[in-house]
């Protein structure tokens, strides 16, 4: 339902973001130089880390998959005005249920077993998100806090499962056996870690963009996020929308979790397999300004930083703290520059924003 003018704005935004990325990388190198490390080597390591070999590039894309999925999860909830900061926990939940299905069902063809395991992942994520949604809708618990606390609990549960009920037969490794082959994603690029689960990205991103823009449900979701009081007054069941958005968001995170098990080299359940993807997903969504399609380039950037940073750490011996700081610089510059440009370009958006009463959109139960 949008037109040219908006597209031009989006294009300008993309150009600015790109520029900011380049600038940010330069600044990062400067920081590295100041720390006394060899800049040339560091830059080369970063580059090699991302593009150096098919294996490296495959590894970057492997990291990209759960990042995008988690980001889309965030977008779905936040467009409805809900803050699902517990994506991390939902990834753990989804990975666990996917592992259960992968481990305990056998003799099924892959065409049945794999989709079943992925769906189990979605269901697992949605179940955990559903608890938070219930707490929010029925008990008035803040969604931010509910999802976050459930993540802490889920972390403990996974670590207990991996060291107890689900541990492999020898009982020494602190993780489960690999799931059945029929439940694992086939390799996409030989000699890399990249598997076919990357098609999930395409499906989920397109579906999210389509639903938000083109369906009644998506419309009600955006409306609820934009002004819950007006939505409610005109017949949208905002509470139901909030619950639905939280559950869907969590289901997408659950799918990300299933990938982290079913497409991992080890293909099993190990404590901490969520590896912070849930939180980084939020960063990706912020970079993408809650636009599902923009999550793809944003996630690529973050995946590259993660992957390249890893090699930089290994090869040049830069401390991991510095690598993290570098990533933070990039993120700050990208988000900050977009904001600055928007403010400077004209005072029009600032003026209209100021014209609104400060707290229109905050519902009583936010």
């Amino acid at each position: 339902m949008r037109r040219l003018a908006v597209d031009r704005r989006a294009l300008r935004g993309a150009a600015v973001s790109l520029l900011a990325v380049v600038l940010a990388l330069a600044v990062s190198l400067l920081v590295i130089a100041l720390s006394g490390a060899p800049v040339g080597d560091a830059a080369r390591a970063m580059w090699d880390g991302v593009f150096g070999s098919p294996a490296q590039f495959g590894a970057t894309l492997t990291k990209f998959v759960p990042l995008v999925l988690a980001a889309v999860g965030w977008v779905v909830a936040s467009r409805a005005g809900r803050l699902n900061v517990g994506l991390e926990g939902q990834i753990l939940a989804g990975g666990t249920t996917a592992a259960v299905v992968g481990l305990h069902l056998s003799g099924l063809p892959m065409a049945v077993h794999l989709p079943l395991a992925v769906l189990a992942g979605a269901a697992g994520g949605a179940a955990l998100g559903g608890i938070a949604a219930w707490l929010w809708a029925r008990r008035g618990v803040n969604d931010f806090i509910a999802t976050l606390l459930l993540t802490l609990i889920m972390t403990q549960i996974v670590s207990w499962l991996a060291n107890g009920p689900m541990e492999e037969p020898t009982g020494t490794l602190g993780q489960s056996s690999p799931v059945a082959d029929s439940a694992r994603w086939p390799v996409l690029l030989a000699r890399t870690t990249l598997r076919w689960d990357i098609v999930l990205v395409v499906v989920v991103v397109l579906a999210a963009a389509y639903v938000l823009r083109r369906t009644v449900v998506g419309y009600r979701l955006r409306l609820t996020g934009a002004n819950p009081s007006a939505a409610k007054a005109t017949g949208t069941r905002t509470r139901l929308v909030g619950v639905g958005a939280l559950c869907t968001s969590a289901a997408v995170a659950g799918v990300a979790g299933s990938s982290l098990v079913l497409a991992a080299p080890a293909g099993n359940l190990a404590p901490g397999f969520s590896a912070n993807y849930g939180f980084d997903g939020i960063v990706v969504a912020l970079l993408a300004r809650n636009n599902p399609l923009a999550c793809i380039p944003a996630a690529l950037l973050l995946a590259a930083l993660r992957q390249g940073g890893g090699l930089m750490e290994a090869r040049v011996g830069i401390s991991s703290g510095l690598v993290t700081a570098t990533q933070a610089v990039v993120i700050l510059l990208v988000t900050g520059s977009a904001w600055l440009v928007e403010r400077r370009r004209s005072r029009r958006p600032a003026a209209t924003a100021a014209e609104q009463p400060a707290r229109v959109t905050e519902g009583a139960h936010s």
Partner: protein
Amino acid sequence: MPAPSRTSDGAAPAALSARAVTKRYGALLANDGIDLDVRPGEILALLGENGAGKSTLVKILSGLVRPDSGEVSVGGAPLPAGDPQAARAAGIGVVHQHFMLVPDMTATENVALAQGTTGRYDAAAIRARLVEIGERHGMRVRPDVPVEALPVGERQRIEILKCLLGDARVLLLDEPSAVLSPAEWDRLAEVLAELAAAGLAIVLITHKLGEIAAVADRCTVVRGGRVVDTVEVGATPPEEFARMMVGRDVVLRTERPVVPPGPVVLHVDGLTLARYRGDRDLGPVDLRVRGGEVLGVAGVEGNGQSELADLVAGVRTPTAGTVTVTARTGGGPGRTGTIAEDRHCDGLALPLSVTDNLMMRAIGEPAFSRAGVLRPGRIRRHCADLVARFDVRTTGLDTPVASLSGGNQQKIVLAREMHGEPDLLVAAQPTRGLDVGAIEFVHAQINAHKTAGGATLLVSAELDEIFALSDRIAVMSSGRVVAVLDAADATRDRIGELMAAGAEGATP
């Protein structure tokens, strides 16, 4: 340096003047070479249709918006464009159409914030000045209560005091009376006259010709972003203003059609709402409204009319009692359309597009989706039709509603809620912020709704509006309906007496 600005007749140097101010939003010229002068001690009215560019001009004068070209000067000295701090320092104070107060801060804190104090500030001193200046001008405010808990009239007084404490020499007021009851407006009119007598230059935007006649010295009329003319108020009859502004004759009074009453559409039984504003209870209220009938609800602001409208519209839940709406044909449940009093809170999603805002209610209709998938072509045609029929001035269907002028935002709500012939129309301040042409149009729409057999519950602070449209008039006081009169028996005096009997004023 340009020569010090002089008004056209060269009488006194202008306190504030604008020269050839132009501002374009996309394809739309919001301000097109506007010239304006206000002298010290003068009240200049600014009159124009919804979307004529009045608020845009105010934002330019106060530095909130940077004009594409043109110049603003204060006392002859040019102001840097688009610099609110500089404008404030030069003595320009503004009360915007939509208030700019931080809701959970007190009056004192809001004033301190506006003074640009950073870090530590002397709260006691600011509070003392606020109270003192308030007393001096007869504008009492409670300095220690969070602004969100105060009635609009008091919030507006805080906005004005905020300007006065900032040593404003020019005061710009954008539709201040839109949120006021008639009594509150009378008070404000006195205050403005006093301030002008003390030498302030005042620009007053209003759609009410009576207010211009009452307080303004001169009036600048704008249409489509251009100045049509600036005239002496005393020498101009009201119809002339309306004609200059709209470009055609406006019927200021509409004939009220009389329709044979149909079956009862709205049943209100024992409706009660405990503590709607701190300590007051609403109800119990019992009402019946028939198809083809308009029931007007009159009362002093704060006596429960707004809450009654909210309860009937279903946006608030009553403590006890029921609201039932039946179809105008006599059986089955009926549909309700609601024109919410606070459009920014309950009526619109400001960041979303015109289309999205027009579809809020109709989205569920089978015509606009197939198997849950929207049909953009149909939706656009429907919205384009509504925009044309209700004469919404917008740059496009995809424009965010936040960028529409106040009156045009109101038209969006009207267009949406009147679509599809609701059985009951709950209209709370339906013409607030509309120009005379648009008011004429809305009144005609309400009359058409009535002629078609729909029921209407009308809440309005404008007694004129109540008289113009209502078949029966309910008078509220202290949360109760104290009387329901036939329009034929109702006189201004009688209603005034009933409103005052046991009424608690807007400000305790």
